[in-house]
C-alpha cells in the first residue's frame, strides 16, 4: 500500500464517517456497507455524491460501482480509478 493509497482510504473513511455519522472504529475494510455500516439504498445514492465531492470526479455509471459490497471495495474502486484500471463510463 502506497502513501497515496493511505490518503485515499482516509479520505473515503472521513467522508463516509461524517456523512453517515459512523463510528471510525467500524470503518474496517471488510465492513459490509449495508449489513455492517447500516447504509440503505438511499444512503448509497448519497454515498456516491459524497465520494464524488471528496475526490472531485464523477463516479456514477463507472464500471465496478454496482459490485461494491464492502468498505474495502470502495477503497479499491477509487484506487483503481486513480491508476486508470477501471476507466470509462459504463
Amino acid at each position, binding site marked *: 500500500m502506497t502513501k497515496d493509497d493511505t490518503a485515499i482510504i482516509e479520505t473515503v473513511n472521513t467522508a463516509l464517517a461524517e456523512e*453517515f455519522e459512523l463510528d471510525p472504529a467500524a470503518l474496517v475494510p471488510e465492513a459490509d456497507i449495508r449489513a455492517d455500516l447500516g447504509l440503505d439504498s*438511499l444512503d448509497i*445514492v*448519497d454515498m456516491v*455524491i459524497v465520494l464524488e*465531492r471528496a475526490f472531485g470526479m*464523477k463516479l456514477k455509471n463507472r464500471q465496478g460501482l454496482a459490485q461494491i459490497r464492502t468498505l474495502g471495495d470502495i477503497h479499491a474502486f477509487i484506487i483503481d480509478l486513480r491508476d486508470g484500471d477501471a476507466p470509462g463510463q459504463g
Partner: protein
Amino acid sequence: MRRRVVITGMGAVSPFGEGVEALWSGMRSGRSALSLIPPYQLEGLSCRVAGLVPPVEEKHLPRALRRTMSPMSVHAVLAAEEALRASGLGAEDARDMGVAAGSTLGSPQMMQEFFTSFLTENTVEDVRSTVFFKVMGHTVAANVMLALGCTGRMLAPAAACATGLAAVCMGYEAVAFGREERMLCGGADEFHLLTAATFERLGAASLAQKPAGASRPFDIARSGVVCGEGAGMLLLESLESALGRNAPIFAEVRGSAMTAAPGSIAHPDAAAIAGCMRKALDDAALRPCDIAYVGAHATATVFGDSAEGRAIEEVFGADTPVSSQKGNLGHTMAASGALESILCILMNNSAMFLPTAGLTDPDPACGRIGHFTEPLTGRRGPVLKNAFALGGSNCTVVFDRYRA
C-alpha cells in the same frame, strides 16, 4: 354519532425555544420572541426581523430519520414527542395513531438547494436523494409518522397560514366520527427569505428594522407580518380512550369549522370569517355569549386584522375578550394555528388571558372589539380560535375545559 374528543397532549417548538413550558413562560413574561435575521443581500427585500427558533436538541433522533428532515420536520417531531410524553403514551402506543400535520410549503431551503444545481450548474447529479423528502408537500406528516412509527391515516393539509388549525379540524373529525382513536395534529414551518419576500411583495410584511414593536396586531401603527417558524402539535383523543387509560385531559374540542372565501385569492373577507366562526359555534352548540375568549388569527396586516376585527365585532360585539399572540411570536405560519391553540388552552386552564403585545392604539378599522391591555384573570369558559390564510382558507375551532 359524534364522539367527544379531548386534547391529551401538547408539544411546541417556538421562537421562545423548545417545549410548551418555554412557550408559555415566554408569553407570560410578555416579552418579544422576535430577533434580527442575519444580514443578506436580496434586491426588493428589506425585512429585518423574524421569529426564529433557537437551536434545538435533535441528536437523539437516529440519522436514518434525520436524513429526510429539514428543520420544520425536526421541530414537528420534537413537538410530537413532547405531546406523547405529556399524554403518558409510550412509543408502542403511537403505532395505531393517525397524523394530520402540514406546512405552507415543503422546505424552501431544500428547494433552493435543488434549484441552485438545476439552474446554475444545469445538473441534478449532485443533489442528495434525501432532498426530495424534505421538499415534498407532506414532508412534515410523513416524517412525524416515520419517526413515531404511526400507522394510522396520514393527512397533510396545505392551507397556508391556516394549516395548523386545519389539521386540528381534520383530526377532530377523524376522531369524532370514529375513524381513529388518536390523532396527532398540528403544523410546522421554517423561516426562509422566500417566505418574507412573498409577504413583502404582497405589501403585507412588517418592514420594522428592529424587533421591538415589529409585530403589532390590531394597532393603528401595524405594518404587516413578521415571519416566524416553529411547530405545534396537539394530541386529539376520543374521550372514551382518554378516560380508559386515565390520561391527562387539557381540553375538549367542542366544535370546528373550515370554510373557503372564494371572493379573492388574497383579500380577507369579513363576512366569510364571521360565517366560519358562526359555523364553528353552531357545531359546538354554543352561542357567542358563551365564549370566554377569542384567540384571533390577527397577523398585523392592514387588511387581515381589519377583516377579522370587523367579523369578531359582528359575531361577538365589544364585550368578549380578544387578543392575538403574534405580537410576541410573530407569525409562525403553518405552526401558528397549533401553537396558538396550545396557548388558548393554557390561558383558559389557568384563567389568565394574555393581551396582544404591541397593541397600544387599537385601529377603529378593526371594529369595536374586546381588546385588553393587561392579563385578564378569573375568567374561564369555551374559547374560540381562528386561523385564516391566503387563498381564502378559514378555520375556527372551539376548545373548552373538559367537564364530565
